[in-house]
């Protein structure tokens, strides 16, 4: 009797165990298949078809890849995404680590209070947060320019400036993600046995040396995971851009996912949008695998 047949008609205790295990994971597998795998395959297939007026599709081979990859607007959006990544990810990870190290030293009561405060932005809807920040950044009525005027500085254009729009969006990302990353680091720090730190201290290591040679190496898997999560989050940025700048001004904040969205739903070019989706998937997969292989070091407490 084959493996699958024994799942349907179990004969032994182990068969029944396997069937129970299979049934337990089935909802998750079904969900993953319906929500992620099928659309992924659809996108891949769709990237070879052009939608014609009337809604019919025609196989065009690699023509849409050629169109997308020779389009300056596409590469402009990729470049903006990379710049946003470079501005957001290191700042978020370093700040989250610093905050977690600080919180780790507090008593439980204060730690919980501060941790909750840092976590609140993560619980806020990204669109709502983006709209709040849009008001904060408003050149005329915004609190940020008001604060600058109090210290005698000139008002800035923030989201309405070619040069300031990406740093401004990066700041929103850092604010939104800081709490989540901090929680991961804090949980990881709490899991590290205190004996390591105490042993290093007895051996005469300074606080900086203990951080560099004891804490950070033990946090390596978590730092890597947070970096990957931040990379994916920032690469897929959509809500903030769409709710605030819609890619403007003059395309200065046009990142890849909003461009994909416009291509699919504003210009109705589903094939080209599928090419972009495949590109995003391939890039994220490649970067994640590279990060995983190069930077991941096994850790044992």
């Amino acid at each position, binding site marked *: 009797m084959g493996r699958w047949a024994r799942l349907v008609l179990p004969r032994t205790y182990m068969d029944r165990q396997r069937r129970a295990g299979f049934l337990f994971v089935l909802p998750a597998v079904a969900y993953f298949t319906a929500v992620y795998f099928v659309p992924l395959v659809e996108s891949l297939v769709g990237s070879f078809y052009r939608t014609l007026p009337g809604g019919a599709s025609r196989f065009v081979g690699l023509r849409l890849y050629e*169109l997308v990859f020779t389009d300056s607007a596409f590469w402009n959006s990729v470049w903006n995404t990379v710049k946003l990544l470079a501005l957001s990810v290191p700042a978020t990870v370093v700040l989250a680590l610093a905050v977690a190290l600080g919180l780790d030293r507090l008593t439980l009561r204060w730690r919980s209070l501060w941790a909750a405060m840092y976590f609140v932005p993560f619980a806020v809807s990204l669109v709502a947060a983006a709209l709040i920040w849009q008001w904060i950044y408003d*050149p005329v009525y915004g609190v940020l320019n008001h604060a600058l005027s109090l210290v005698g500085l000139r008002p800035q254009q923030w989201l309405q400036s070619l040069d300031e729009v990406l740093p401004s969006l990066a700041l929103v990302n850092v604010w939104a993600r800081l709490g989540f990353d901090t929680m991961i680091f804090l949980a990881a720090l709490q899991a590290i046995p205190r004996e390591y730190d105490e042993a290093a201290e007895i051996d005469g290591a300074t606080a900086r040396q203990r951080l560099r040679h004891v804490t950070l190496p033990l946090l390596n898997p978590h730092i890597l995971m947070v970096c990957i999560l931040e990379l994916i989050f920032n690469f897929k940025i959509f809500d903030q851009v*769409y709710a605030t700048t819609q890619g403007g001004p003059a395309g200065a904040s046009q990142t890849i996912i909003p461009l994909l969205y416009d291509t699919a739903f504003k210009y109705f070019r589903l094939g080209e949008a599928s090419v972009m989706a495949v590109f995003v998937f391939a890039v994220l997969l490649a970067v994640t695998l590279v990060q995983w292989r190069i930077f991941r070091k096994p850790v044992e407490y």
Partner: protein
Amino acid sequence: MRRTTGGAIAVLAAAVLLTTALAERTPAQAKKLVYWTHWEQNPEFNRWYETKGKEFARKSGYEVEVVTIPYQGYEAKYLAALMGKTGAPDFFNGIAHQWCGQYDFCDRMPPDLEKVWSENLPKYMRAWGQWRGVTYGIPIEHGNFQQMYINADLFRKAGLDPDRPPKTLDDWLAAMKKLTVFDPKGEPTQVGFAIRHKGHPVGITDKFLPFAHAFGARMISPAQDRATGVANSPEMVAALRFFGDLVTKHKVASLAFGNPEDAFGQKRAAVIFRESWYFGWLKKNGPDVSFRVYALPCGTSCPGAGNLFPWSNLVSKASPNKHVAWDFLRFISNAKDDLEQHQLQGILPVWAANLDSSYVKSRPDYASTKEMLAQPVPPNYYHPKSNELATAFGEAVVGVLYGKGQPKALLDEAASRMDRILKE
């Protein structure tokens, strides 16, 4: 484990049976026609369909349910629903060359209704709701061409006569300079013109086109097959230079001001170009603004009554209720209902005979509407890829406003992109 698995299956089966039994016992739902619109700025207008739907229900058994889709991103929701068919509206507010042209989602209008509307629409609107000569939709917004709203108080304060608006672009620019007020640091605290510079490039193109038309330029060729030599013509370059100079050279418009509508409503801008619906919006949101409405100033040409978005009511081809939807539209296709619905929201009616109703005559844009309708009809861009074309073009416009490049270079680049879009 065997018992647990068996129990789970039994519970699941019971749940399915219970759901089925309940579904069978539920009384039949009231029959409804579902209407989708993205006109979130016109709630009274939208609600009228529901009110009228109750009256329609007495003879047909169908009420009307209005679903207002937020404008930002409405295309995605429409597309997903119309493609998926389930959850799609029976009829909807849309653009014929997109939903009936690029996609085949629309049902053809019955001949009797087509006759009614062709006899009762203002001439310039007859092409709306059509794609390749076939009529699909009923135009719903007369006056969605831009007109010049001026703040009468700010005009007087600047020594200008609000009853004598600038008629040419040169006079208009001179007036804008007088209407702009700077603080000691040289930043404008009040601008002459509320310029659209934020948001999607399609909207920015829409607001720039009257300037382009006033310079005798057009966005794409009359045959809608090319942009090079048209979108980057010397006339278009001159128009865009004029538009950009409003911000960069003359500083009579500012990028620091947010939404132009808000700036005008807050009396921080003296002039705005907007459509007839803005009259109703302003009455509600800026009731203390003393305003007048005039025809747009002319350059070498007059901008005329043109638009980028010819909104129509369209019926979904896949709807099982499409005949009822047409019946409903037939039910409201008369002068009385047209006037009632548009008056509720403070927008101009569509039915030609209503343009001389006392309501329209009492509106501040009555004379300007007549004046603009008397001007030559400007080019239209009712192409299935109008959104994409307008985006490529709008990137050049906004690029000039933000000092990203010179008009000629940016328009050359835009024209090349637009050619590619047209070719594909």
